């Protein structure tokens, strides 16, 4: 019996083996799911009134940050980093708000498509500058964050604009059950539609390849420059989604960039994306965003001084990542 399993196992693994294999490869993500469940239980414990409405609020609040985290994850996996995430979100947010104001519901569909294209273009501009000038990613995107922030003020210099009703309705409330917020469904659908085909495509492989080792990727036949530009363009696309999520949740556009850049970096680090590139996915960062949001809620419930709560958030970030590296080191030794 065992011999037979062995022979089959070398070519076609059994179901149990596949599952345990999957679990091993997604260890970090599974741990994050457990951590999230723990935080949800803890939240319910300290605030018994925590219910469907709060869950919906959590999802709406997390949506733009989660999209920012996905944007950042894509570019970091490919070996770069984008410090203009917050500015690009502000630019796309105000653009959508200005164009939707006092327009028909139908025209809003055109606006959504247009803003998505805008995101792709500004992301591609970031990437092209990096590839052509060979100036480090961090420098270019920092500089471009000022450029996009300035452009944002050109479009709209004070909070304003508007949003179509169907657009706002897209992420508010719940679906099927009170416990399933629409915002969460939107997040899962949007990420699934873009990420799953990408992950399975040659392009997805190339993204991981250039992040893991550029020389090897080049020798393997990957067009490193083109792949990098596409990575930044996809980051721009997700920034546009994030920007429109801001518009949809507030019903207006604000020209002041939120703290999305740093929050996205925090989320991907907690979510298991290696800042050195080549490792990680987007599920971990999304869960990490929810964890970080819940921590904030819990600290409010516990009536911790808001100034001190950011200190705690920072400490949790270091603690969890440190814990993860210690576990990884143990495994290597064992």
């Amino acid at each position: 019996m065992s011999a037979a399993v062995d022979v089959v196992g070398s070519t076609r693994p059994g179901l149990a083996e596949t599952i345990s294999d999957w679990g091993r490869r997604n260890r970090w993500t599974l741990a994050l799911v457990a951590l999230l469940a723990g935080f949800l239980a803890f939240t319910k414990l300290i605030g018994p009134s925590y219910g469907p409405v709060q869950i919906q609020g959590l999802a709406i609040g997390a949506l733009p940050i989660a999209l920012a985290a996905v944007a950042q994850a894509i570019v970091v996996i490919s070996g770069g980093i984008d410090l203009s995430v917050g500015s690009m979100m502000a630019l796309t947010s105000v653009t959508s708000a200005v164009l939707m104001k006092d327009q028909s519901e139908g025209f809003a569909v055109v606006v959504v498509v247009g803003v998505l294209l805008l995101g792709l273009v500004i992301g591609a501009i970031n990437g092209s500058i990096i590839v052509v000038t060979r100036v480090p990613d961090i420098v270019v995107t920092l500089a471009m964050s000022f450029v996009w922030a300035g452009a944002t003020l050109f479009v709209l210099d004070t909070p304003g604009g508007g949003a179509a009703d169907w657009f706002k309705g897209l992420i508010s409330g719940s679906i099927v059950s009170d416990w399933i917020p629409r915002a969460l469904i939107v997040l899962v659908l949007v990420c699934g539609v873009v990420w799953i085909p990408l992950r399975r495509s040659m392009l997805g492989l190339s993204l991981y390849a250039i992040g893991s080792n550029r020389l090897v990727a080049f020798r393997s036949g990957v067009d490193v420059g083109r792949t990098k530009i596409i990575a930044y363009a996809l980051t721009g696309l997700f920034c546009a989604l994030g920007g429109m999520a801001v518009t949809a949740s507030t019903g207006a556009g604000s020209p002041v960039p939120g703290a999305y850049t740093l929050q996205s970096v925090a989320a991907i680090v907690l979510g298991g994306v290696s800042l050195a590139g080549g490792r990680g996915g987007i599920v971990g960062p999304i869960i990490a965003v929810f964890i970080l949001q819940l921590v904030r809620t819990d600290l409010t419930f516990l009536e911790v001084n808001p100034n001190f709560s950011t200190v705690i958030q920072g400490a949790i970030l270091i603690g969890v990542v440190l814990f993860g590296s210690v576990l990884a080191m143990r495994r290597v030794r064992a």
Partner: protein
Amino acid sequence: MTSPLLDVTGVAKHYGAVAALRAASIAVRPGEVHALMGANGAGKSTLVKVLAGAVRPDTGTILVRGKPFVAHSPGEARRGGIVSVYQEPSLVPDLDITSNLRLTRTPIDPFRSWLAELGIPRLDLSTVARTLPLATLRVIDLARALAIEPTVLMLDEMTAALPADLTERVLEVIGAHRGSDRCVVFISHRLIEIAAVCDRATVLREGETVGVVDVNEGSEERIVALMLGDIVKGMPARTSPDRAATAARVSSVPRIRASSLRSGTKLRDVSFDLYPGEVLGVVALEGQGQDELFDILSGSERPDGGELAVDGAAVAFGHPADAIRAGLVYVPADRAEALLMQRSVRENIALPFTAPLRSWGLIDTGVERRRVDAAIDTLQIDTRATSEVRRLSGGNQQKVTVARWVAGGVRTMLCFDPTRGIDIGTKRQIYELLRDLAGSGAAVLLYTSELKEIQLACDRAVVIFGGRVVAEIAVEDADEPTLLRAAYDLPPDAPMPEDVAANDLAGMADAAVADTATVIGT
């Protein structure tokens, strides 16, 4: 006579003013395993990169099956039928093997059968590349290239770091290409491998093809002769060392005694003594274990085995600071590794000695200035001490690297190819400095990729091949041909006896097992 499958003529490639290739030509027939030979810097690697699509040549034509071949990227070259396998495996470390195969559009079934042929019958293709031992990755890389069935397969030093049993398998598989409709371009520093699988050899020297040799008995001699060419003596050789110094050396305690140092698959068994007052040369072809040896001596790496004694006392370095405290200082080939480019010459020279210079936490600038000025004077560094190091020429930068240690009264200096890419005048100054250091009682270990430097600067030389010391040569005998023959592990004046070579290969197998364990551990 059949027309060549691969026909390269007049390929040149310049990097700025430096010519990596001047006029390289190579013609390979169908079913041929063809060796590409040349000393360090002859242009082999550049030619491989040109053919693999990684580098665009300035001029020259490449024909594959009689048709012009143009490749702007490795991917295009692969589609055109030319694939290269390098010493460092080209597998993306964070992807599993299946994804790596997809990335290069490699069919899986032929890959599996080649892998089995190469001695790895079962491999979990969902394994992430970085978790596999290096030797396995090299074989996977080769199997992947074979599975594409390229018209021209190029192997650039791929056997250099392979354990003996795998090397044998690889040679068998390559040998099987003889008589097929495809061909192999094979680069190796081991003449025994060339003799085993190759039909002909093209020899490059200073970027030019200088000859094509049929590989048969006695062809090693012709290959070596072609690689050397007419040796022009650029500088006068040193006269033989005086006998008194040699006698003194033997009676004194060695500054460094290395016994059977081992590290990974590259450094297998190296022993030597370095005495005060001498410059000991280390001669080796690329990748024979000299990098690992210098890493161990300078405290950057710990050896896997063997012993190291400094001034008669056993030492175990855990950090470069330990080596510096024991009086061993390191001058690397890459200046950027040793210097703070944005800081001044003064600070760079003073840095290693700030600890002894310090009094109550403040740097005593008076003492610092005197020492720095003395060092700059000795070295004739052509600059003011306050200018930033990165603004100096390469030669002056290297002088600063040496100067920083001279300022503190160095006891033992480890120089790894210190004159790489430096003009001849500065080279001479550095040799003189090394001689002066030895004259004042210091010990110097000098690895150099330029064989003629040995006679200019050293008292004697040890030759490392395949991670072992294979010869020790006194300076009066250390002319370039002798050193090159020794570096290829050929005996001084006779053709290589088969049994010696066989022993050399057999001894490598056990070290390979140890290497596998290390790779998993990291």
